[in-house]
């Protein structure tokens, strides 16, 4: 596997487990073991997640990537020693930064949940190779990350409009839509990865899935009120519902 295979979820997992620093070693840039130059992707992932660590109050230096070849043992030792020294200076995760343990835990849990969403939004940027080290720091800005994490998109099915056609539920990649025939569909916000597939899948004539930005999602319709009362099937085909 390539350094580009390191998933941000792995990194956050390590921090969630109380690890104080995460180091990723990749091939030297432009000397890819494959032909894919996945180390550029790993680099961007690290740059992005350093900003995200900062957003939840952790020191970005706790995550580092370095590029070297298998023959550069000395460099590896030097770099790792240097990293360990830095992490020791920073102190234990969260404590060093003076964040409350519960806040840290909930912050990391939130990021874990948002990893798929972050990928959906930032994948195009993650794929852009940065040739010039001067670009590294400014490639992802603090404002950008604040926007990304404060104005999180949510999807919500308007119970008034949902016709329980199952189109969204069938396409949902993470089975987050609670659905059945003639039952109003509901998105399980805990499972939802905010990919927008349901938004695309909902027939335009229903337009039941709405996108909510940075606002809380209305509570789901109670179980007992989800049954849809409708006229006979034939009628429905003869007389499709208006789009709005």
């Amino acid at each position: 596997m390539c350094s580009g295979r390191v998933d941000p979820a792995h990194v956050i997992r390590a921090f969630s487990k109380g690890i104080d620093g995460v180091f990723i070693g990749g091939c030297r840039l432009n000397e890819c073991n494959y032909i894919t130059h996945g180390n550029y992707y790993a680099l961007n992932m690290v740059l992005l997640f350093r900003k995200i660590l900062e957003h939840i109050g952790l020191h970005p230096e706790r995550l580092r990537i370095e590029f070297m070849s298998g023959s550069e043992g000395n460099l590896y030792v030097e770099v790792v020693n240097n990293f360990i020294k830095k992490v020791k200076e920073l102190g234990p995760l969260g404590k060093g930064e003076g964040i409350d343990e519960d806040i840290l835990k909930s912050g990391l849990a939130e990021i874990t949940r948002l990893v798929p969403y972050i990928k959906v939004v930032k994948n195009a940027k993650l794929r852009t190779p940065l040739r010039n080290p001067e670009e590294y720091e400014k490639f992802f800005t603090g404002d950008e990350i604040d926007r990304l994490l404060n104005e999180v998109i949510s999807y919500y099915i308007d119970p008034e409009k949902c016709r329980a056609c199952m189109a969204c539920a069938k396409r949902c990649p993470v089975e987050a839509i609670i659905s059945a025939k003639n039952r109003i569909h509901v998105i399980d916000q805990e499972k939802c990865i905010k990919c927008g597939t349901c938004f695309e899948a909902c027939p335009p004539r229903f337009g039941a899935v709405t996108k909510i930005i940075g606002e809380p999602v209305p509570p789901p319709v109670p179980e007992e009120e989800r049954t849809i009362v409708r006229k006979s099937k034939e009628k429905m085909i003869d007389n499709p519902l208006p789009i709005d």
Partner: protein
Amino acid sequence: MNKAIHIYFAQAIPLVAYIDESCLYLKEKKCRICQRICQNKAINLNQMPEKVEINVGAIILSPGLEPYDPRLKDEYHYGDFVNVVTSMDYERLLCSTGPYQGEILRASDLKHPQKIAWIQCVGSRQVTEGGNSYCSAVCCTYSQKQVILTKDHNAEAECTIFHNDIRSYGKDFERYYERTENLPGVRFIRSYTSIVKENSETGNVTVRYSTSDDGVKEEEFDLVVLSVGLNPPADVQSMAEKYGIELNRHEFCKINPANPMKTNRPGIFVSGAFQGPLDIPESVFSASGAGSQIGELLSFRRGDLARERIYPPEEDLSGEEPRIGVFVCHCGANIGRVVNVPSTVEYSLTLPNVVYAQEQLFSCATNAAKEITDMIKEKGLNRVVVAACSPRTLEMLFRDTLREAGINQYYFEMANIREHNSWVHSKEKEAATEKAKDIIRMSVARARHLQPLQEFELPVNKAALVVGGGVAGMTTALSIANQGHEVHLVERDVDLGGTAQRIQTTLEGLDVQAYLADLSGKVYKNPLIHVYTEATITEATGYVGNFITRVKYGGRVAEIKHGAAVIAIGADLYTPAEYLYGEDDRVMTHLELDEQIAKGDEKVTGAESLVMIQCVGCRQEDRNYCSRICCSESIKNALKLKEINPEMDIYILFRDMRTYGFKEDYYREAAGKGVRFIRYEPHDKPQVEAGETEEGKSVLKVTVPDYILGKKLEIDAEIVALAAAVIPSAETAKLAGLFKVTLSPDGFFKEAHVKLRPVEFGTDGVYLCGAAHYPKLLTETINQAYGAAGRVLTLLSHDIVIASGSVCEVNENKCMGCGDCIAVCSYGAIELRTTRQGKKAVVNPVLCKGDGLCNAICPTGAIKLKHFTDEQIVSEIDAAAPEEEIIRQIDAAVASM
């Protein structure tokens, strides 16, 4: 000193003890203690040598070399001063199985030497009694390696290298030289030396040398390393008689410059340093190349003596609870000296699902593999963890061991407790033992989640494609075709021949044009070779064993199906922008000079004075490599000119003369014929200006500092020849993209492994030879071209090829059809297919190389890289993290501080 019973060396095959001639019983019929003590009664002191007759169709001689013995020259005081050692002795000091378990100690007082001197060219480049006139070709670089390793052991060590020319002419060697030179406390001093005396109290050794700044100096060193050269094998004369082969005047094998693997006796070939001083990659080229030439002779009975390996049928263990066996390797002393192996074994037994654990001296040894298979059966293991070295070299071997035991090979996991642990923590033994336990715990955690995977059998198309019709391409094509395989040879130009068309003779005197005519004649006449000239490759798809390449030639397009591809596109010559090149027609490149000499151009052959400038456009920041061939080329041209016009004044302005190997003799010959060699430094390069002599004759004024005379020299030259750099062919990047292969930092093609796989790419089924790999001389190109053919045959002689089971797979239900995976896959292995549930990604496992980028980029986790799944990786991360309880204790301890 070894005892009479010993193991030859740590990785010897077979790895068993033997008794040598120093045995007391063999000498004096005494002792026999070993026989009494051996419980298995394995010792037979009456064994006699046997004579065995074997009928063979061909022979390869690869007797290697003998290190030069510095006792031949008293002046080195080797064997006299205890702190003067050879580089071979020093190699043993560096080795973890060496006399001090890898610690660098002086024999005199068992202290760490702080000041170490290397003396280069010991026994080499000498015409005095007891020395060799040739250059041993490898010592400059191996000494640099020893310096780097010494600094690794002891960062404070002061290392001094006394040298003549530094000959770092191999691929990436210039960067290596620079890296060594830039280490703190490392001095390179260009000076002859003499070893003056030994301090009777300290054992230190005094070396006398001189520099142009300080004159003659004496300096004391704790240890002096003699960089000994390469001699022919010790019993070379009797071997030559036995096989009826001729030796050259240095007593190496006499070889044909047009085929350096051939001896004078048909059917007898030579590989390795018996050709002359060679480094490892070139020995490997020649080994594979000699194999290919024997294939040409004997291919009609290929496989007759081969026996197919039969593995026991694989059991389906997927439903079983994991039963893990852990084998912890001592690696001789490499691991065992640092890590407390028995305690890691004990620890392993406490881990979940581990049902068995044991230690092994060398897990890679044949008997150890047998132990593993036996234990799998006896203990009913269904997962195996070997805690040893990096998986890079031996994972394949252990997987095979699992197959032998009838379980899926992907149930194997390796914990690297050597490179990642014992080698870097040799001074922290307790911490290293704890770290070994951590690493084993992580591997065991991953092993619990391993899945059996199936590999793919792909058919092999028996034809080969060779790109480039120069000497390298033609030689490879012929050798492949002579073993019964169809070859498609694609050449960009009208004629075959490449750069060799512009060269008249080699330094050794080979008539290149006659050779080339003969070679291309053979290529055209071979019914199995299809030649495409004025051809370009427009598309290359497919994979190992099954490539499809489209070639445009003469207004037509051919679609070629082939199993293997060889890239042999050669190199280009740098067009100098310096020294008035292109502005004054009296300034030319060395290749143009060669052509003008051949044409008999009076302006050149009749010149009174000619200056050659070396290293034009390379060994500098933007092209940080040595072009390797130019020193020999310039010497060749100088000798040719001296032959035509002995009165001509020829100056060669150089940085280091790199006439390695036997080429040194020609350098000496040129100096003897009055060619003047003037060294310059890169920060003070020669200057070339148009000017006039005192008599008013128009000349080129060349100014250069002379470090021996200590002043500026002004030379009136009629011709200036520039040793222009050899640069990667302009086609390189395009072909690399088409065949999905990689390039080195210098822009030449990058082989899969410098020493282990020097003629193949990381991309399966694609091979490499000639100057496309790195600049090289004709004979070296031929060596490598046959080498590539040998490797191609190892693929084409099989009917099927196996592709890894560690590839990506899509769970359609989770795929949202975003296509991000396709964007990151450089192999074109993924495509979107329309289904009733919308677009879904599909992986072609044969094209997938298992880098796993798609897995990391996939937002929904729909695509996964088998054998490196999130579940497996996360289980390792979780196992790496200390338990909550431990964290709490640490935090409490920190808080109370």
